[in-house]
């Protein structure tokens, strides 16, 4: 799993410039060594961390040493990683979204209750939920760019508002604390196939969410490293005034990033909706911090301008491994949060150390 993730970005900076550099200006050109280049990649800390955690659980938890367990670990990873991918893009762009966890539940509730209330095909509800989730992202982004207040505050407000609305609207519409089941409604099976099915590959049940997670990570990486918008995201997170001065549309890029988080919240919301067919209205709280933690463990700078989607995926993998490893090792699952916290601390210290060394060159 790690091998497929790490190949594109390690190949990117090293190969071409070494070749073109040496022939034209041999002596003047002090190339950073390959080893230095690898060690200063944002992902390297999280990759080593993931290997360490993997080795730990392979050693202490015998039941984890098989493909089914690997599929379970990857699934746990994907439920964090899909959102974390969008959250990391936003963080690289220099902003936070504290409403990301609750927005997943809001989207799921919106889709589920819309479908149930109007008795329509679930795909209509799915599209309604998409519009709803994108609107949340747009409003967050619009308010942040318009008011220039820290996104921490704006999205903290959005987080509490959505949490309140989830409970309130669900109670008003259904008279209960969860949305009614939509499992017998038109289109449920096809929607489930897209968002929450399990595919059998070589006797191992692979959740489709894993494939989506890998796909989203690849797309996010491509956007960051190989598109104009990616260049803008890094620059905006780094120094938004500098970016604006050379003509980067800072406001729209940021709004787009918040809407990307909205899009992923919609996707995860649909995953939950079609997995369980009914959604608890009080869920999602605290997940936003797990996504942020995954991005930070994966090497994204808290203040923006630095990080990768691959690193974030590895950060999510560390949490997925920990989450399932604890269960397979027979430890108390209450320890999960403890391990996440400890991992986060170790990762930030390690990343800082690596970056200081990188600056020193």
């Amino acid at each position, binding site marked *: 799993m790690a091998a497929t993730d790490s190949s594109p970005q390690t190949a990117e900076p090293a190969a071409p410039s070494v070749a073109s550099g040496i022939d034209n200006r041999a002596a003047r050109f002090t*190339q*950073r060594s390959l080893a230095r280049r690898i060690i200063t990649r944002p992902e390297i800390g999280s990759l080593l961390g993931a290997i360490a955690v993997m080795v730990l659980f392979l050693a202490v938890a015998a039941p984890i040493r098989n493909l089914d367990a690997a599929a379970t670990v990857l699934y746990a990873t994907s439920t964090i990683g899909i959102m974390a991918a969008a959250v990391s893009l936003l963080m690289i762009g220099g902003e936070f979204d504290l409403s990301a966890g609750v927005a997943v539940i809001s989207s799921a509730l919106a889709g589920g209750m819309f479908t149930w209330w109007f008795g329509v095909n679930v795909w209509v509800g799915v599209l309604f939920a998409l519009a709803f989730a994108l609107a949340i992202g747009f409003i967050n982004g619009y308010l942040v760019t318009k008011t220039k207040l820290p996104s921490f505050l704006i999205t903290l407000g959005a987080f509490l508002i959505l949490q309140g609305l989830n409970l309130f609207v669900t109670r008003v519409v259904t008279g209960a604390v969860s949305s009614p089941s939509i499992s017998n409604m038109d289109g449920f099976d096809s929607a489930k196939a897209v968002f929450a099915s399990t595919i059998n590959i070589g006797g191992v049940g692979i959740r489709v969410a894993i494939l989506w997670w890998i796909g989203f990570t690849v797309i996010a990486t491509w956007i960051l490293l*190989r598109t104009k918008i*990616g*260049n803008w995201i*890094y*620059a905006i997170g780094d120094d938004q005034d500098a970016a604006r001065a050379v003509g980067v549309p800072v406001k729209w890029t940021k709004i787009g990033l918040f809407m990307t988080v909205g899009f992923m919240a919609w996707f995860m919301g649909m995953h939950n909706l079609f997995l369980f067919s009914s959604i608890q209205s009080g869920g999602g709280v605290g997940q936003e911090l797990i996504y942020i933690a995954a991005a930070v463990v994966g090497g994204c700078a808290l203040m923006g301008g630095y990080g990768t989607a691959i690193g974030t995926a590895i950060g999510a993998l560390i949490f997925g491994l920990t989450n399932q490893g604890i269960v397979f090792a027979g430890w108390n699952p209450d320890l999960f949060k403890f391990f996440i916290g400890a991992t986060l601390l170790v990762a930030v210290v390690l990343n800082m150390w690596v970056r200081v060394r990188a*600056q020193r060159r």
Partner: protein
Amino acid sequence: MTVDKEQPPILELTDIGKTFGNIRALSGVSLSVRQGEVTCILGDNGAGKSTLIKIISGLHSYDDGSYRVAGEQVKFASPREALDLGIATVYQDLALAPQQSVWRNFYLGSELTKGVWPLRMLDVETMRDTADEELQKMGIHVPDIDQPVGTLSGGQRQVVAIARAIHFGAKVLILDEPTAALGVKQSGVVLKYISAARKAGLGVIFITHNPHHAFLVGDHFVVLRQGELELSSPRKELTLDDLTHHMSGGADLDALKHELQRIEPPDVGAVHELAEAEQES
């Protein structure tokens, strides 16, 4: 450096005035910039240098006088309009994103792409090679085009920002105190580069309060004082001493000197002797 005086100025300000509320920031300032010529604007803090360049670069509007670019009267509403006419400003803060690579910064906001949407992607090879080539051409040797801009020296960063402005079609380059925060060697790098920009046929406006730096590269010198022209003179009518003299107050300084001479010197002399006596002891 021979400057063809018959050539029409690319940028010409006549009797420009600007007031902020009841404060007169600039009045009666005239200035012209020709291609292949470096015009230095000097002045103390608060002399109106930054107001003047903000007017030239389109950040501020002006209240009196006229501003012509290539003979056309202009009144810019935004820096973008000035940029579109080829007037690029490199501010002290440079507008570079420190953690991004040199080539990404070079092309920031003007990225090259290839392919068709939705697979339209950055033309990384061309951008990296072109940025490297452009910098080489201007005599700047960045150790590694992939290194973060923040790891370059202050002088190199200035030069990258200048090279970028030139590459993207600047005809007039406004440099706001490019040597202010730099040591002697780094300043030398930037000054060499200003000279290269002039050779490339650009009109350069070099704002500084260091007359020594100005005199090394300038063709025309403008000294501002309290929002008015203290001096506007071509290089051949000026020596470094004149320039320094005008910089440090010029006519006012003369008047002060005169005044001081008229005051009978006894107490000054006494203090002076006292100081000398102290030094000897």
